[in-house]
């Protein structure tokens, strides 16, 4: 799409001022409850470190961070609340009947370009994600769908090959986001630069590496609890800033009012600032070591177990996460429903680990190659691990690489240990565990080939009942700990950070924000 020429800051201020005036007028005129115009609350400026490549939900490449922006423009048929329950969105209700899932759609909803949202649009969207020609990064998540049928203008039925208990959850996120067929067909490959959905905001312009401006969607269907029109903000300005120090400085001076995340070293400096709120939603950056099980010495169980006890997780957390961390047994956070507090975090004992290595035939001075990403604090963590392992008698060489080379090395298996990090929780445990632990997982860097583990992973994925799933995922975690295929390190806390005069934030289960009810000021 063509980006409109630069709008001056004065023009933005002018717009804001007129919107504020409009608000004042509305307020004077008494309760205009439900009017769809003129309930603006000014401009929210966001500092965002991870600019999306595409704002086409079907092509989104980030694991989750793109959704902070996708949520401005798009919605799905359903939505998952922070506690995991599924609630209506563009569908008013739905019915599960074995392998059939029937949605009754909301009426009177239109896309930003004025085209109507109806059963045809919903069916077209689902088929679009599945169609191999779309090259959707989300196609795999909907692979159980056999057919999508329009029953009438407000009813659409999905038939799956077999019952898929995860389908509703998947449809709450990127795979189920509804885009305008008219706009997508017209823009073709360029649709990702000009998002058109049914969401609370409409794209105004997006200047790569600089900023994205979204304005209020006056025709948004959703009302707040008091019946007032949403969204409350007039405008959302997303400034793409990659430097954590700059992000922190901008937030403390009020240049931006909301941040996605900051490293602990930066946000601990904001704790005493009364103007700033750190909201811990349970999001953690979970560090781990992938242990290459295809080469000596870690192709054997005993050295892997020795490794698990050789690393001082607290020392790493204190230094690399400024003490802002949890110790957990696996990728599960303390608040996850599938977390099992009885699973032990391997105890750190350098002397014992050294003896265990020796007993396992891993002699003193055995060389190991540790691959890390070349961005803070990963090299620091790598050097702490190097020091830990030296105490246990192993000689670690560090290779700090840029992302592409790093992933390439991990996939090719030319390493002994690989330091990595994932953001948890994800919106389903299968998304957290399968890519890293399943023998066919794309990020099975440890090269695990464990039929036992594959079996319990499949059980966790397939069971509809949460209790059964909890048991399955406890088995998964127990198995991976027992086999020491991965060494789980600390989980650094990653709170959402915003100015204290920003309220009304809502969040996805994995901590990505939704701004339809956000407001500025008291």
């Amino acid at each position, binding site marked *: 799409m063509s980006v409109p020429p*630069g709008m*001056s*800051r004065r023009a933005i201020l002018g717009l804001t001022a007129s919107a504020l005036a409009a608000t004042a007028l509305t307020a004077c005129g008494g309760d205009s409850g439900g009017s769809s115009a003129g309930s603006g609350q000014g401009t929210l400026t966001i500092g965002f470190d991870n600019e999306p*490549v*595409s704002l086409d939900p079907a092509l*989104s*490449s*980030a*694991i989750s961070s793109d959704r902070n922006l996708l949520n401005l423009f798009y919605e799905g048929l359903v939505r998952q609340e922070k506690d995991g329950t599924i609630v209506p969105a563009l569908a008013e209700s739905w019915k599960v009947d074995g392998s059939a899932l029937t949605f009754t759609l909301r009426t009177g909803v239109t896309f930003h370009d004025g085209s109507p949202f109806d059963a045809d649009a919903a069916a077209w969207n689902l088929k679009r994600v599945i169609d*191999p020609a779309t*090259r959707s*990064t989300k196609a*795999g998540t909907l692979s159980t769908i056999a057919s999508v049928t329009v029953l009438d203008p407000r009813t659409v039925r999905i038939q799956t090959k077999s019952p898929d208990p995860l389908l509703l959850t998947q449809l709450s996120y990127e795979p189920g986001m509804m885009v305008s067929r008219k706009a997508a067909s017209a823009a073709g*490959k*360029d649709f*990702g*630069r000009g998002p058109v959905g049914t969401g609370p905001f409409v794209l105004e312009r997006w200047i*790569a*590496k*600089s900023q994205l401006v979204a304005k209020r969607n006056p025709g948004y269907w959703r009302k707040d609890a008091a019946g007032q029109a949403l969204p409350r903000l007039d405008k959302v300005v997303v400034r793409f*800033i*990659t*430097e954590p*120090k*700059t992000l922190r*400085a901008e937030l403390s001076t009020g240049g931006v009012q909301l941040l996605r995340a900051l490293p602990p070293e930066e946000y601990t400096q904001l704790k005493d600032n009364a103007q700033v709120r750190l909201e811990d939603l349970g999001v953690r950056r979970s560090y781990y070591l992938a242990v290459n099980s295809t080469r000596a010495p870690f192709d054997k169980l005993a050295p892997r177990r020795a490794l698990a006890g050789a690393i001082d997780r607290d020392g790493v957390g204190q230094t690399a996460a400024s003490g802002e961390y949890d110790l957990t047994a696996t990728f599960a956070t303390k608040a996850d429903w599938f977390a099992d507090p009885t699973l032990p975090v391997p105890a750190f004992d350098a002397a014992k680990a050294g003896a265990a290595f020796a007993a396992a035939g891993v002699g003193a001075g055995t060389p190991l190659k540790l691959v890390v990403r070349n961005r803070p604090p990963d090299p620091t963590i790598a050097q702490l691990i190097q020091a830990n392992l030296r105490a246990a008698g192993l000689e670690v060489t560090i290779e700090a690489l*840029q*992302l*592409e*080379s790093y*992933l*390439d*090395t991990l996939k090719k298996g030319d390493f002994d240990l690989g330091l990595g990090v994932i953001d948890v929780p994800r919106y389903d445990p299968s998304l957290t565990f399968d*890519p890293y632990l399943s023998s066919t997982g*794309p*990020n099975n860097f440890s090269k695990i080939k464990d039929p036992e583990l594959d079996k319990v992973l499949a059980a966790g994925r397939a069971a509809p009942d949460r209790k059964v799933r909890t048991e399955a995922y406890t088995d998964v975690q127990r198995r991976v700990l027992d086999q020491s295929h991965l060494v789980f390190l600390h989980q650094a806390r990653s709170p959402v950070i915003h100015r204290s005069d920003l309220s009304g934030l809502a969040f996805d289960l994995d901590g990505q924000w939704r701004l339809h009810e956000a407001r500025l000021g008291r």
Partner: protein
Amino acid sequence: MLTYVIRRCLHLIPVLLVVSLALFVLLRLLPGDPSTAILGPEATEAQRATLRGDLGLDQPLWQQYVDWIAGLVRGDLGQSWLTREPVGAAIADRLPVTVELGVTSLLLATVIGIPAGILAAVRARRRTDSAVTGIAMLLLSVPHFYLATLLVLLFAVTLRWLPASGFVAFTEDPAGNLRFLILPAVTVGSTIVAVAMRQTRASLLATLGEDYIRTAEAGGLARRRIVLVHAMRNALAPVTTVIALQVGALMSATVITETIFTLPGMGTLIVNAIFSRDMPIVQGAVLVVVAFVLAVNLLTDLIYAWLDPRITY
């Protein structure tokens, strides 16, 4: 003269071909491909393979190279693998920032470097001269990333006068634009200031020793007039040449400086594209930079030849 100009221009074609080939081969040696940036770090191998097919990466290398060159000849730089943006448009977006940075640095060099050089020459072998010469030596020697770090430490972290990084377009906020540009421009300009100072001093000293200047002095012309009008006129040619020859180094300097100050110019475009393996962008942008440097070098040679009657063809 004309045939010389034409011959020199024709020489550029093989040079550019060599550059394009070297660039292409070098970039294909990099490990990894753009699939991570486009599909995300957890894409499956099947998805990656499909993407490589879509991008034509499954074709033989020579075919990819020929396609690229054929596109270039048609004036088509290709499309970004990542954003699908035309490479020409991406460059057009970023070039103004780098040009602004470069021009500001050159301006600094001229405004500070040449007068300081004159001062040093006039006061040759006195304290002012030693001070200017010493400063020039420091500026010439300081690595750009270190100078940038010191400037950030002083003006952003300690004094809080200027931002440590970031950018806003001139059209959007002229004053803000200058605030963001000052530290990078001083960083890039440091070398050129030093070069201008040293060359001005050396050329002026040489000229001041020539007979006609001595004659003028003996004839009673004011010293100031002699230096500024008569001597400087002759000293200016080598100064201009040496500053122009710095354009190549200047383009190199913008790469690391833009990275440090996160300016959205050609340098960050190239570096980010190398890291995300967005080859069409790297190829296009580097080729544009190289062609620009070659053109400036050629122009410098021609102007120098034109200014200096001793050179024949």
